[in-house]
């Protein structure tokens, strides 16, 4: 019998790399099928959006110039003169926002489904680090167009970093590359955005994906007492994978639609001596913190209000990251209502303060 070409290639690779083990492992990969299966897609969506970011990012670097005098003009050039430049740029900006949104949804769904519990603590830790890294991507990337909004958002953001006691001043100078936001800041943020953060991100992403493959999909808590035959699952290949592909295609289409009908704006060029524009605020994923800080009184007790705010958020963030640590009930199989309440509180807080931030222009 004549072998097909694909079969020939597979055999050749198999002889050298023992792909059979890999194939059988993949064949057994499965996803639990129940009412919450839909949340299992969001990890993949986050991954897709990261791939989109890397692709469009590399394309943008072909034309972007990262110096104070040229950055703004190069973005304008991409938007107007480069063939499909408008598409690549708008997709990059929209996808950045959608990626962080997807990561938030992914994180909260993991939280409520308690997938962080033993043995998956490391997955959770690497995941939260990936979230912080993506917010770092968002913050550094936002400055690169060097327009008015970018300049002032960076100014305010780095100012807040400078508020920290002891390390604040050092941190501010480190971020800004000087006392003020200048071309030096742009160079640093550019290096951060295209070299340092991608490197670190890939490391943690690899860790995150490896441990997931090793440990398989997390099963719902209620299945703890079920027999293997009673657990309804979908094989990852090809069923779940095809669904995944379907959703990915739709997400790509959504990105193209957003880029065409809601192209990303480019404001006036940054001017260090212009007044801060009315209604200046950070991107939505920072907005709830920014808005909360506005409401804290200037001095609480003997502590400066802003400092208290930063510390509170820092502490809350730390507790959130360490949830596998302090959730003692779930590993024992008990329902931990506190986790749910805390989660609902956090989500509501974020949503409410984000909305307030937009309404109170």
């Amino acid at each position, binding site marked *: 019998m004549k072998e097909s070409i694909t079969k020939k290639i597979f055999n050749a690779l198999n002889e050298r790399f023992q792909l059979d083990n890999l194939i059988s492992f993949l064949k057994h990969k499965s996803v639990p099928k129940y009412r919450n299966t839909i949340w299992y897609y969001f990890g993949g969506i986050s991954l897709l959006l990261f791939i989109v970011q890397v692709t469009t990012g590399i394309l943008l670097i072909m034309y972007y110039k990262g110096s104070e005098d040229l950055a703004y003009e190069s973005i*304008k050039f991409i*938007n*107007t003169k480069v063939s499909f430049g*408008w*598409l690549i740029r708008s997709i990059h900006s929209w996808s950045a926002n959608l990626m962080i949104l997807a990561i938030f949804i992914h994180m909260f769904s993991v939280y409520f489904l308690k997938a962080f519990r033993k043995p998956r603590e490391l997955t959770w830790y690497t995941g939260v680090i990936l979230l912080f890294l993506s917010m770092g991507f968002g913050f550094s990337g936002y400055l690169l167009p060097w327009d008015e909004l970018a300049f002032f958002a960076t100014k305010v953001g780095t100012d807040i970093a400078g508020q920290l006691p002891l390390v604040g001043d050092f941190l501010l100078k480190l971020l800004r590359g000087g006392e003020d936001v200048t071309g030096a800041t742009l160079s640093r943020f550019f290096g951060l955005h295209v070299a340092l953060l991608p490197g670190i991100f890939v490391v943690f992403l690899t860790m995150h994906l490896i441990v997931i493959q090793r440990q398989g999909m997390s099963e719902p808590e209620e299945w703890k007492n079920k027999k293997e035959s009673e657990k309804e699952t979908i094989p990852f290949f*090809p*069923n779940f994978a*095809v*669904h995944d*592909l*379907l959703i990915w*295609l*739709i997400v*790509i*289409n959504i990105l*193209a*639609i957003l880029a*065409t009908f809601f*192209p990303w704006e480019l404001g006036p060029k940054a001017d260090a001596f212009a007044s801060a524009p009315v209604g200046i605020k950070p991107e939505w994923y920072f907005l709830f913190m920014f808005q909360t800080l506005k409401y804290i009184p200037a001095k609480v007790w003997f502590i400066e209000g802003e400092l208290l705010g930063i510390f509170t958020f820092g502490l809350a963030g730390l507790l959130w990251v360490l949830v596998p640590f302090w959730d003692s009930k779930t590993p024992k199989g008990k329902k931990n209502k506190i986790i749910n309440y805390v989660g609902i509180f956090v989500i509501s807080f974020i949503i409410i303060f984000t909305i307030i931030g937009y309404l109170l222009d």
Partner: protein
Amino acid sequence: MYKYFISLIISLLIINFSSAKTKKNFIPNASQQTVNECLTCHFDNEDGNGEPAHLFKKDIHFNKGITCAGCHGGDPTKDDMDEAMDKNKGYIGVPSKAERYKVCIKCHSDSKKMKSFGSNIPTDQFEKLKGSIHFTKSINASTPIADCITCHSVHNIASVKDPRSTVYPTKIPKLCKSCHSNASFMKQYNPSLSIDQYEKYRTSVHGKQNAKGDINVAECASCHGNHDILSVKNSKSPVYPSNVPQLCSTCHSDKNLMDKYKLPHDQYENYKNSVHGNALFVKQDLSAPACNDCHGNHGAVPPGLESITNVCGTCHAFNAELFAKSPHKKAFDKLNYPECITCHSNHKILHATDQLLGVGKDSKCIQCHKNNTNDKGYLIAGEMKSLFDSLKIADSVSTELLKDASLKGMDISEAEYSIKQIKQILIQARTITHLADIKEFKDKLDEGFVITNKTKQAALDAIDEYYFRRYGLGIATIIITFLVIVLYLKTKKFEKKK
């Protein structure tokens, strides 16, 4: 009957005692025959007719019965020197240059006193003089530059209406010249002020007529004022730039006066409605030309027919230069046409519209050029206008398209910037019209057409891009939707399999 006689004496006495008698100066009233013993000595002691006492006999004050004491004080009835020139009787001798004007104003600023001498002349001369530039202190810081006596002289003062008066209209130019054409004198006060006004004046129509004895034409005081002369830079001066047209029109809009010289009297009306008048009066632009800028001020004379281009060209330099090089210059001069004025008028210069060019009914070209085979000018004029109009149309087409593209959200900032140059090109083309050369005109407009073509293309490209994006998206969506459906069917297959 004697009742009448008594009332006469009583009235005489009343008139006598009702006159303003000061203790110091014995200033008689008009009806008194006054005794002037001063002249007894002073007349005899003088050598000739130029001396005060000799001169005083011809003085108007003398004729009105005012004695030497009227200005110098003292007692004119006494012929003894000590008694007459008695300080206690108010004798002040020759008043100092700084103070002598006070002698004049004692009567001349007092309307009652003036009336008592039967005089109706105004009594505000000193008030006016006080605020004038002549009354500022001279370089010695004590005396005024000019006072009453500087111009009216002394001892032989005649009425202004008397040709013998130093300030009779025909005498005034020479009077003013005596200081104002004296370089070393003027240098002490205003070195940058010119000193050739008199010379220029004598070349003007006003000056020539004045020299002939015509007192109806303007002389120095007619424009600058007599007592209240202000600096030209003072906005209250009648010769301040924005006041000049009204000043000239006081005579030049007077029909009766102008008819005598066979001159028109509508210039001021016309000027007021012109662009120059509008600039000067409404926009308060002091650099706008008034009568003197084209006609000259001291040497006022309308420019000769062949020099009109140069006069207009002092401001409208480029147009003048082009016109002088054009075929129109020779033709106009030969036909005695007044150059610029032929198309633009002289006083009623209105905003030049684009309709002036071409062969339309409002154009100036058709006033000479006719539609026949010999007249190349007619064809050129028509061609110029149609080219000009096509550029304007191309500009508006491009602008509309660019607006459409920008409303669609496309970035056309570069094209928007270039199209602004069209306005400049149209302005330059309007100027080049004066050269009356079709090639230069076409070259300039061609620059504009290059821009309108480029910007129109940019706008069309932007609009095409807008639609391309949406069609492209549509195609991509169709492909993806198709794939999604096929994949979905595939998944159904897998599920069935299971």
